[in-house]
C-alpha cells in the first residue's frame, strides 16, 4: 500500500512537468477533435494521431497517447449523444437514452453525466491498475514461451466474443490477421517473406496504414454510400452543469457501472463493449420504473458510460502485465509502444518503473483533462458536429493521407492504406468484422516467436503446451470458450446482448 503510494508519487514527479502536461492536454484535445467526427471510431482516431507522437521521447509519447486514447473514447460518446452515431460498439447503448435526452433538449445533462461518470470510473480503474499491476506482473514474469503462446491463443479466441458476426468469419479474420502479420523479414533467418518483392514491405506491413484503411477509409466510403447519414438535429444543448437531482439519480448507476466495467475490462475479449451492454441491462433491472428507459433515462447514460470507461481503463492490465491486448484498440497501443521501443509485458513494470508509473499518473491527468475539455468546451465540439458531412469527409480523407504519409514519409504507405481500405470495404459488405483481424495482425509475430522458441526447448514435441499447468489451463479455457460460443443456446444469448 505505502509502497504503491510512494511509486505513484514517483510517477507524479515524472509526469508533472509543464511540457508533459501540455502533451497530455494536446493529446486529449486532438483525440476529442478527431474522435468526435461522425464515423471515426477510436481505432481510426488513434491510428490517425499516432504519427504525431513519433518524434517524442517514449515517456512524452505515452503520455500524449493516453490523452489521445481518452479523447478518442470520449469523443465517440459525444457523437452518440448528439447525433445518434456511436463511434464504436461501446457507445451503442449510450446513444439509446443519450440521444433521446438530446432530442428533449437535455443534451447538457447527458454530456455532463457522461463526463463525470467517465471521470470517476477512469480514476477508479487507474487505481486498480496501480495496485493489481505489479503483483500480476510478478506472476507473468514466470511465464516462458509455451505459456505465452497459450496466453495469446486464449486472447485471440476471446477476441471472437467481441465480433458480433458469425463465429467462423470472426475466426477467419483472426487467421487473416495472423498471416498478414507474417509479412516482412523473418526475425530468425532474415529471409523476406511474402513481401511481393517490395523492399518497403521488408519491415512488415505498416499497421497505421492497415488500421486507417480498414477502419477509416472503409468507413468514409460506407458513409458516403447512404446519403442520409448524420446531421445535428437539435442545437439546443441545455445547461452543462447538471442539477443536484440529476446527479443524485445518476450516482448509483455510475457506481454500479464502474464496478461492473472494472471487472469486465480485465477479461480478454471486448470487455468494454460487454461492460456497457451489461450495465444498461443492470440499470434497467434495478430501476423502479423501467418504461423510462429508451425515452431519455439518465441512468441509461450514466451506467454504460461509467462501465465502458472503467473497462477501457482496466483493459490496460492484461496489456501491461502480460503484453496481451484485449481489443483492437489495445492492439493498436501495443503497436504504438513497440514503435517507441517498448515491449509491453511484465518487464516494463519491473525494469522501467518510470514508464509504468508515469503512465499511471498520466492516466489520472488524462481523465482530468477530459473533464476540462468536455464540460466547458462542449460548445466547440457541437459546432464541429454541425459541419455537414459533405465537407467533413474531405477533411477526413486529406488528414488520413497526410497522417499515413508522415509515418515513413513515403507514398508507399498510402497505397497500402488504399489496399486495406478496399479490403475493409469488401469485408464490411461480406458481413465480416475487421476488428479481430487487427488483433491477429499484432499478435502474429509474437505467436510465431513463442511457438518457435517452445519447439526449440521441447525439441519439436507439441506436448509441451499441455504438460505445463498454466499453459494447459489457458488452452482448456480457450477450447471451452469456442465450444460455448458455438453452442446454439449461448449463441442466442450472445445475440440478445448485442441486440438489446
Amino acid at each position, binding site marked *: 500500500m505505502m509502497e504503491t503510494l510512494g511509486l505513484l508519487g514517483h510517477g507524479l514527479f515524472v509526469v508533472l512537468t509543464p511540457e508533459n502536461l501540455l502533451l497530455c492536454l494536446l493529446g486529449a484535445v486532438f483525440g476529442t477533435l478527431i474522435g468526435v467526427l461522425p464515423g471515426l471510431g477510436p481505432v481510426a482516431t488513434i491510428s490517425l494521431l499516432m504519427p504525431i507522437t513519433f518524434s517524442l521521447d517514449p515517456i512524452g509519447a505515452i503520455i500524449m497517447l493516453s490523452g489521445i486514447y481518452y479523447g478518442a473514447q470520449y469523443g465517440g460518446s459525444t457523437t452518440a449523444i448528439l447525433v445518434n452515431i456511436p463511434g464504436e460498439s461501446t457507445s451503442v447503448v449510450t446513444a439509446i437514452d443519450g440521444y433521446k435526452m438530446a432530442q428533449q433538449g437535455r443534451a447538457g445533462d447527458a454530456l455532463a453525466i457522461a463526463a463525470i461518470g467517465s471521470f470517476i470510473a477512469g480514476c477508479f480503474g487507474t487505481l486498480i491498475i496501480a495496485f493489481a499491476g505489479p503483483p500480476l506482473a510478478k506472476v507473468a514474469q514466470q511465464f516462458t514461451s509455451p505459456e505465452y503462446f497459450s496466453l495469446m491463443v486464449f486472447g485471440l479466441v476471446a477476441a471472437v466474443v467481441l465480433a458480433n458476426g458469425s463465429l467462423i468469419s470472426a475466426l477467419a479474420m483472426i487467421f487473416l490477421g495472423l498471416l498478414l502479420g507474417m509479412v516482412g523479414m*523473418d526475425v530468425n533467418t532474415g529471409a523476406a517473406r*511474402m513481401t511481393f518483392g517490395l523492399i518497403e514491405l521488408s519491415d512488415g506491413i505498416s499497421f497505421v496504414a492497415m488500421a486507417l484503411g480498414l477502419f477509416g*477509409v472503409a468507413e468514409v466510403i460506407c458513409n458516403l454510400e447512404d446519403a442520409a447519414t448524420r446531421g445535428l438535429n437539435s442545437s439546443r444543448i441545455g445547461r452543462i452543469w447538471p442539477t443536484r437531482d440529476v446527479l443524485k439519480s445518476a450516482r448509483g448507476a455510475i457506481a454500479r457501472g464502474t464496478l461492473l466495467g472494472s471487472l469486465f475490462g480485465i477479461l480478454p475479449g471486448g470487455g468494454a463493449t460487454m461492460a456497457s451492454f451489461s450495465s444498461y441491462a443492470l440499470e434497467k433491472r434495478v430501476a423502479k420504473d423501467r418504461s423510462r428507459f429508451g425515452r431519455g433515462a439518465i441512468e441509461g447514460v450514466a451506467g454504460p458510460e461509467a462501465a465502458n470507461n472503467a473497462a477501457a481503463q482496466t483493459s490496460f492490465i492484461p496489456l501491461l502485465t502480460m503484453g496481451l491486448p484485449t481489443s483492437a484498440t489495445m492492439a493498436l497501443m501495443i503497436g504504438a509502444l513497440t514503435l517507441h521501443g517498448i515491449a509491453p509485458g511484465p518487464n516494463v513494470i519491473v525494469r522501467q518503473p518510470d514508464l509504468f508509473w508515469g503512465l499511471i499518473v498520466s492516466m489520472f491527468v488524462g481523465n482530468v483533462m477530459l473533464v476540462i475539455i468536455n464540460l466547458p468546451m462542449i460548445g466547440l465540439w457541437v459546432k464541429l458536429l454541425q459541419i455537414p458531412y*459533405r465537407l467533413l469527409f474531405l477533411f477526413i480523407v486529406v488528414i488520413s493521407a497526410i497522417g499515413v504519409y*508522415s509515418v515513413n514519409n513515403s507514398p508507399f504507405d498510402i497505397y497500402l492504406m488504399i489496399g486495406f481500405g*478496399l479490403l475493409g470495404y469488401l469485408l464490411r459488405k461480406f458481413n*465480416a468484422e475487421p476488428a479481430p483481424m487487427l488483433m491477429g495482425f499484432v499478435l502474429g509475430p509474437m505467436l510465431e516467436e513463442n511457438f518457435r522458441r517452445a*519447439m526449440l526447448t521441447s525439441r519439436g514435441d507439441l506436448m509441451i503446451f499441455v504438460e505445463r499447468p498454466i499453459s494447459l489451463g489457458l488452452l482448456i479455457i480457450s477450447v471451452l470458450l469456442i465450444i460455448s460460443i458455438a453452442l446454439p443456446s449461448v449463441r442466442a444469448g450472445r445475440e440478445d446482448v448485442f441486440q438489446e
Partner: protein
Amino acid sequence: MKQFTLRGSADLYLGLLLLFISGVMYWYVSDLEIGTVRRMGTGFFPLVLIVILAGFGVILAVRGVLTKSVRVAPITLRPLLIILVSFVAFALLVDRVGLILAIFAQVAVAHFASDETKPAQSLLFGIVLALLSSGVFVGLLNMPVELLP
C-alpha cells in the same frame, strides 16, 4: 447514385476472397524453406496459417452456397472508386509537386464522391485544409515535405 447488388450470400464471397488471398500468399511462400516442427523454417508458420485460412475459405464458400445466409449489401461504385483514386492522386503528387498541390488534387477528386458536395464550398474547404495542414504538419510538427514545387 447507381447501385448494384451481388447475387448469392455474403459468406460465399467472403470465402472466395479468403481463398484468393491464401492462393496469392501461397505463391509467395512456396519457395521458402519449410523445415520440420523440430526445426521450423522461414515458411513453416505462414504455410500453416495459409492452409487454415484456405480451410475457412472453403467452409465459408460451401456454407454460402448451401444455406441462405445474409446477402451482400448493395454496392455503390462511385464513392468507392473515387475515394480510392483521390488517395492515389495524393500519393502520386506529394513527393513531386509538394503538399499543398497534392491536397488540392485530392480534394478535387474526392469532391465527386458525393452528390451533395458543392464546388465553391469544396474549393474553399480545400484552401482551408491546405493552409491548416501546412501550418500543423510542416510548421508545428516539422514534417519533412515540400509545400510547393
